[in-house]
């Protein structure tokens, strides 16, 4: 109930801001229900509400894009009856997360050159293979990369649909699964009218581990030896503790 009221409040604020913005040169305004997603011990994935307003004309496309990472795709081959990892192609500039949201299905109102320059849709992502790979192989592995990402829920299989209210307000939710890649995300919003981008906005969304989870991860990677010693000490104490419990019960 409280959440509903607060979201209504946000909407109202955006509506007011949006109306004001429409008169000045800012035909699209967008905001998120939170700009920081904390991965804590109980994290099982989360939904972020995305909402905004337009001046009333055109269609809105929103791209939710995670940080660029490197990814290696390995092809499984059958050797002596068992499946083993064979050839591999490494890619750079791979968005760790990628979703497209639009107020309408992506057809002629969004011309292909526009999709290409703004990387709208997984097929237009500028993912580059590392090293010398022939184009056919690169394309095959690139498609496999996208399939893998879609299977993990990190890339959308189709674009998400945004609900429009009263011709001006739009809203949608983005789901980040439990194994969501961490880092700074970019939320790119485009207002398309007459097959042109009439307005755009970029805003960041940070997803990171916090609290104990973050500390453990940091220590494990930055002070690995210390972490290893601590892990052993914990195990010895647990073993001694278990033994004491065990003796008392006998």
């Amino acid at each position, binding site marked *: 109930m409280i959440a509903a009221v607060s979201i209504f409040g946000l909407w109202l604020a955006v509506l007011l801001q949006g109306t004001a913005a429409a008169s000045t040169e800012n035909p699209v305004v967008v905001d998120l229900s939170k700009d920081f997603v904390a*991965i*804590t*011990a*109980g*994290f*099982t*994935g989360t939904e972020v509400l995305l909402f905004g307003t337009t001046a009333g004309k055109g269609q809105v496309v929103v791209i939710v894009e995670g*940080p*660029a*990472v*490197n*990814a*290696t*795709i*390995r*092809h*499984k081959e059958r050797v002596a*009856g*068992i*499946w*083993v*990892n064979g050839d*591999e192609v490494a890619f*750079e*500039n791979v968005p*760790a997360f990628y979703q497209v949201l639009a107020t309408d299905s992506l057809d002629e109102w969004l011309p292909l050159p526009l999709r290409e320059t703004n990387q709208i849709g997984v097929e237009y992502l500028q993912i580059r293979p590392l090293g010398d790979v022939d184009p056919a192989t690169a394309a095959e*592995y690139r498609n*496999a*990369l996208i*399939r*893998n*990402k879609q299977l993990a829920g990190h890339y959308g299989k189709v674009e998400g649909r945004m609900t429009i209210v009263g011709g001006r307000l739009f809203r949608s939710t983005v789901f980040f699964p*439990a*194994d969501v890649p961490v880092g700074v995300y970019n939320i790119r919003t485009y207002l398309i009218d007459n097959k042109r981008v009439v307005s755009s906005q970029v805003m960041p969304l940070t997803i990171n581990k916090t609290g*104990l*989870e*973050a500390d*453990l*991860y940091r220590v*494990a*990677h930055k002070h*690995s*030896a210390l*972490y*290893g*010693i601590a*892990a*052993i000490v*914990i*195990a*010895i104490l*647990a*073993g*001694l*503790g*278990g*033994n004491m*419990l*065990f003796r008392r*019960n006998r």
Partner: protein
Amino acid sequence: MFLYLPIAEISVNVIVFLSLGIAVGTLSGIFGVGGGFLMTPLLIFFGIPPAVAVGTEANQIVASSVSGVLAHWRRGNVDFKMGSILLIGGIIGSTFGVWLFRVLRELGQIDLVIMLSYVIFLGTIGLLMFVESLRTMVRSRSGAGSRRKLHQHNFLHGLPFKMRFRRSKLYISALLPLLIGVIVGILSAIMGVGGGFIMVPAMIYLLGMPTSVVVGTSLFQIIFVTANATFLQATFNQTVDVVLALLLMVGAVIGAQIGTQLGAKLRGEQLRILLALMVLAVCSKIVYDLVATPDELFIMVTGAAH
């Protein structure tokens, strides 16, 4: 109830993993085995990345071995001299094993090597155990007992660097336990096991140690070898998840109590067959996973951008 594991980077059901710890802990309690050889493949079946399963399980075995060795120490069933020789071998072996683990991981073949090692060892141990317990059941039914020599003398007794091991009543070459230590150390690092299931038969049949000191001595050695593996896996591969390890340790402590009490009441031979069947079942599942055609023939590994 879900818990996010910081190193495995996935969210797991606490109840499931606690139950897993209790179940394997119970088996360890009944049979006096470490349980790593069952726990690591089970962790993998439940979605923990194989590399993290191996590193974390080494960590958990430190705890269960510390707990186990104290009881044997109190009864004087630890041959520290033999244990130390095995230990030197174990440290060499596990250090080499962690290095090998890293190389194989970079080549993208670590999962395959882990799985194949499990198939070989679980298959062999499961079959041997199954046949052995069937034979004992038949023998106990027919009532005939056979006498064995304390230990056989073979070419192994001709090796140099002979040492006297009082507690084990042995005068043998130090090279033999050293070599056993090295092999078990490598397995420990690659498979995430203590290696008791290899070392105990090797100590009995190859070294000819008395059964009474075998378990205590192997536990003594396992503590240090798995501690070394934990340290090196954490330092070089960052694959030790302490949150997961702690979850398993709690389960194992509870399970070990249940197991010890159950073990005293149940009949050994049938139980042993049950364990053998379980080992073979896990082995078959791994074989199936290796042989069955996967839905997706391309797999992805991601890393941070340079």
